[in-house]
């Protein structure tokens, strides 16, 4: 009894010595590096997306975050703040705009945090980037977008009417910029899956491993990965390159890479159908592009589809004017009021979010569908037949007189 009683403490003491020596030795070799996590990536090149394995060593027992961003490819992000202030109850109507949002930005968090991401996902469209960042404890990893230069404009009704963004407000301080940049990250990347993934496997001894699934359709060029434990403990950036080749091209303003053959074929089909149904292709083109290529911002879709119809409109006008089938007076008079409207519209596009864009467009399409349906009713068809006959008759006369005068 007594003997055993002596044995046990001895054993423990020996164990403590052994382990103590072991950990002391570990501290000695890593002491310098402990503050700075190490990082290694298994390859430095991917082709239009791919998987990169990241491994490294960080301080034991602490979560490791990986901040990944596109270096050298920035895109625009904007947000119109019209939400009621919780304290004052006033709506600020401030328009935030930056041109320095990385074209790709994502934070990979420890895989144990999946539950927190799922929790935030339940909020649907109302998820908050800053809240999720805080819940995940990834605030220290959020560095790159916080340095973006953000302009803000005070919008007023008057400014909107004349199609201006409003008055440029003074530059924000660092803290405010950081806060607003998070909202812009959400405005730009929209879904949680685009900005967070929980798949960093952190072992108790501080080694970590993660497979970075880099999605297709992102900017080509250099990407940087930084392993972050906290503010002081950040690794050197590891760099890899995303390569793309024709027909996949990078759309600088949209901030995405796209196989250009798809929009070509889509436009061809839509243009043909558009002519047949007697409506410009824009009605079908915009929603289809938004549905098929969710990475494209709605502002770029609207802004790029619009000029594609200019040519067909111009040639149509030319053909009609050749046979003097245009009333210049009427066209220009109504055209002037439309000119004003078109001056204002594009500014409104960037002030609304994608979901508002979709909502309004949905109703416009329903109205258009109703118009189309009305045009297939027997009463309309009978009237239209007469109108078309007169139209043909007049056109014939116009054509022959145009030939005659030549």
């Amino acid at each position, binding site marked *: 009894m007594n003997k055993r009683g002596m044995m046990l403490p001895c054993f423990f003491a020996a164990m403590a010595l052994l382990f103590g020596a072991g950990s002391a030795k570990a501290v000695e070799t890593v002491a310098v590096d402990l503050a700075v996590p190490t990082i290694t990536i298994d390859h430095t090149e991917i082709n239009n997306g791919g998987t990169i394995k990241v491994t490294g060593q960080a301080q034991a027992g602490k979560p490791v975050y990986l901040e990944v961003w596109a270096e050298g490819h920035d895109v625009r992000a904007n947000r119109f703040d019209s939400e009621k202030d919780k304290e004052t109850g006033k709506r600020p109507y401030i328009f935030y705009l930056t041109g320095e949002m990385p074209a790709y930005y994502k934070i990979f968090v420890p895989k144990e945090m999946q539950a927190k991401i799922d929790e935030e996902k339940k909020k649907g469209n109302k998820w908050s980037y800053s809240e999720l960042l805080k819940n995940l404890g990834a605030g220290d990893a959020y560095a790159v977008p916080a340095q973006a230069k953000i302009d803000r404009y005070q919008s007023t009704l008057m400014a909107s009417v004349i199609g201006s963004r409003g008055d440029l407000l003074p530059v924000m301080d660092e803290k405010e910029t950081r806060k607003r940049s998070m909202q812009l990250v959400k405005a730009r990347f929209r879904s949680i899956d685009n900005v967070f993934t929980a798949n960093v496997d952190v072992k108790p001894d501080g080694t970590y491993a993660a497979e970075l699934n880099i999605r297709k359709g992102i900017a080509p060029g250099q990407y940087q990965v930084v392993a972050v434990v906290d503010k002081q403990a950040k690794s050197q950036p590891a760099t890899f390159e995303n390569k793309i080749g024709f027909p996949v091209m*990078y*759309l600088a303003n949209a901030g995405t890479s*796209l196989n*250009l053959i798809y929009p*070509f*074929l*889509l436009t*061809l089909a839509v*243009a*043909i159908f558009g*002519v*047949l*149904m*007697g409506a410009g*292709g*824009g*009605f079908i083109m915009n929603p289809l592009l*938004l549905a098929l290529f969710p990475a494209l911002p709605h*502002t*770029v879709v609207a*802004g*790029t*589809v*619009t*000029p*594609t*119809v*200019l*040519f*067909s*409109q111009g040639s149509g*006008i030319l053909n009609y*004017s050749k046979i003097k*089938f245009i*009333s210049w007076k*009427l066209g*220009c*008079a109504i*055209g*002037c009021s*439309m*000119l004003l409207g078109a001056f*204002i519209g*594009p*500014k*409104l596009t960037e002030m609304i979010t994608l979901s508002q864009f*979709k909502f309004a467009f*949905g*109703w416009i*399409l*329903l109205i258009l*569908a109703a*118009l*189309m*349906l009305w045009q*297939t009713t027997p009463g309309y068809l009978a009237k239209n037949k007469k109108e*078309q006959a*007169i139209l043909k008759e*007049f056109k014939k*006369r116009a054509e022959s007189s145009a030939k005659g005068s030549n």
Partner: protein
Amino acid sequence: MKVEFWGQEFKVNMVVGCIGGFLIAVLSSMFGFGGGPFMVPLMTVALRLPMYLVVGSSLLAIFFSTTVSSLRHYQFGNFDLLFFLAMFPAAILGGYIAPQIAKRVSPTVVKRVACVGLILLALNLLGVY
């Protein structure tokens, strides 16, 4: 306002025409479509103008709005050149192919198909499915 066209004179209610045109222009430039399908009913139904006057003149009016809207979108950095270059030739090509097909299909059938398609697209946008 009075408009003369091929020997006939039409009275045009410019207040209705301008307000309607303005609203259509705001929407069409905001959402990036042409606006023809709204402009033609506005001029034929609300302004009571005959179809043969409307076809050319509405196109001219819309051309104004599309030009300004394109410039403004460009100014705000919403225009992507490469994306445009992928779509533009297709749009022109479609414009040449379509009349060949148009001779063989009934416009009423096309419109009914379009109607179904538009409703499906609309419901998709509204998040119904």
